[in-house]
Every structure is written in C-alpha cells, then in structure tokens.
C-alpha cells in the first residue's frame, strides 16, 4: 500500500514539462478510470449474487461500489481543480466527464441511502444488487445523453484540444494508472477483509453469548 502511494505521488509527476496544470491529468484520469471499474466490478459481483445466490457477493459488491464512490468523489474534486486551473472556473458543464461523474455520484449516493434504509438480509442484498446493475446501465446511457445535451445547452461545441501524448508522458500516465489501480485494489481487499472480520466476529459473539 505504501509502495502504491509512493508511486502515485512521486513517480507519476516526474516529467510533464509543458503546462504545469497538465499534471493533474496524471491523477485525475487514472482515478476516473478506477472509479469506472470499481462500479463495473460492483455490478459484476451484483450479477453473480443474483445469478448464484451466494451471500459473499453482497459484501464484495458493496465494497466495490463504496470504493467507486470514493474515487468518483475524488474525480469530481480533482476535475474541478483542473477546470479552475486551466479554464478559470470551478465548475463547467462543458466537460462531459465531470457531468457524468456528478450523475453517477448522485446515483451511487442513492445506492447507499437504499442500502441503509433496508433491514439486513437476503432481500437487501438483492435489492442493492439490482440497483447496482441499473448503475452500469446508466453509465453509457447518460454518457450518450450528456453528449447529446451539449448541443442544446451550448450550441458551440467545446473542443478540448488534446495535445498528443509523447512517449514519456504516456509512460507516466501508465505508471500512474497502474499505481491508482493497485491502490484501489489494495484498499478493496483491506476493506473487504475488515467487513468480513466484522461479520464473523458478530456471529461469534452471538454464538458465545
């Protein structure tokens, strides 16, 4: 975990010589990608739960989505800072990615509301799983919708000129990406282990008393 943090923080920004604000890219994009596949993983586990009916998938799905939401929030924050640095405003509806993440963030916050308002049990597991599946269906659909919405909200389409990535920049990006993925994976394992231990201990306590 320490290694992953070190890599994300110190290896990643080692070059990127043109335009300092470009450096946010190395943390923003990997985090966004990680959030996506956390959501994807959560939905996949949810599907397995519905398919196989094994209870352990419930915790796995929940933890993955929890992770995804944290990374989603980080994407929003770093994206907002990036927008401020390069366009001078804290929020811009021009950036599809940010708007999409806002939608997803709201959606997954609702997921937690749902989860916490249901009594524990197989029914809660399945309800959350169904809602998690809706989430992954929502991602491409809202992406499309936001793309389309652009041209009536802003008739002049905003084109962000993406400078071609050079070799070292691409390498840095890959390292950063790997580091963030690793970080997410380690956090996922740790939280999952904690949640499982918590559940086991509760069961043990009931057995003993």
């Amino acid at each position, binding site marked *: 975990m320490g290694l992953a943090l070190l890599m994300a*923080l110190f290896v990643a920004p080692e070059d990127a010589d043109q335009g300092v*604000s470009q450096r946010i890219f190395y943390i923003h994009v990997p985090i966004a990608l990680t959030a996506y596949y956390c959501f994807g993983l959560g939905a996949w586990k949810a599907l397995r739960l519905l398919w196989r009916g094994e209870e352990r998938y419930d915790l796995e799905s929940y933890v993955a989505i929890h992770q995804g939401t944290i990374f989603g929030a980080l994407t929003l*924050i770093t994206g907002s*800072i*990036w927008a401020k640095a390069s366009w001078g405003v804290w929020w811009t509806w021009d950036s599809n990615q940010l708007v999409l993440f806002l939608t997803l963030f709201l959606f997954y916050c609702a997921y937690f509301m749902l989860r916490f308002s249901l009594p524990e049990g197989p029914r809660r597991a399945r309800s959350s799983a169904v809602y998690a599946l809706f989430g992954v269906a929502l991602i491409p659909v809202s992406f499309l919708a936001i793309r389309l919405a652009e041209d009536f909200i802003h008739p002049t389409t905003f084109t962000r000129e993406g400078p071609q990535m050079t070799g070292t920049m691409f390498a840095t990006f890959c390292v950063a990406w790997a580091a963030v993925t690793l970080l997410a994976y380690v*956090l996922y394992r*740790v939280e999952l282990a904690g949640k499982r231990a918590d559940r086991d201990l509760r069961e043990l*306590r009931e057995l003993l008393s």
Partner: protein
Amino acid sequence: MSQGQYVAAAYGVVFVVVLVYVAIIAAKLVRLEREAAELVELARRRAGGNAS
C-alpha cells in the same frame, strides 16, 4: 493562485482523502481487534468454566 498551486492542491486533496480513508479503516481495525480480544476472553473463561 498559480498553476503549480492548483496541481499541488489536486494531489494534496487525493492524498488527504486516501489518508482519511486509511485512518478510518485503521480505526475500524482497532475496534475489531478489541472485540476479538473480548471474545477470546469470553471463550477462555467459558472453556475454563467447563473444565473445572
């Protein structure tokens, strides 16, 4: 603020959030440890009670 400060802010935010997250997990872990110790104590006492 200069561009560099924004970059620092972005990385700093990520760092702080991850730190807080790890701290929360650590706190949970401590709680779990305490509970486990309690249960071990309970189990031991029960085992002792049965033996005597």
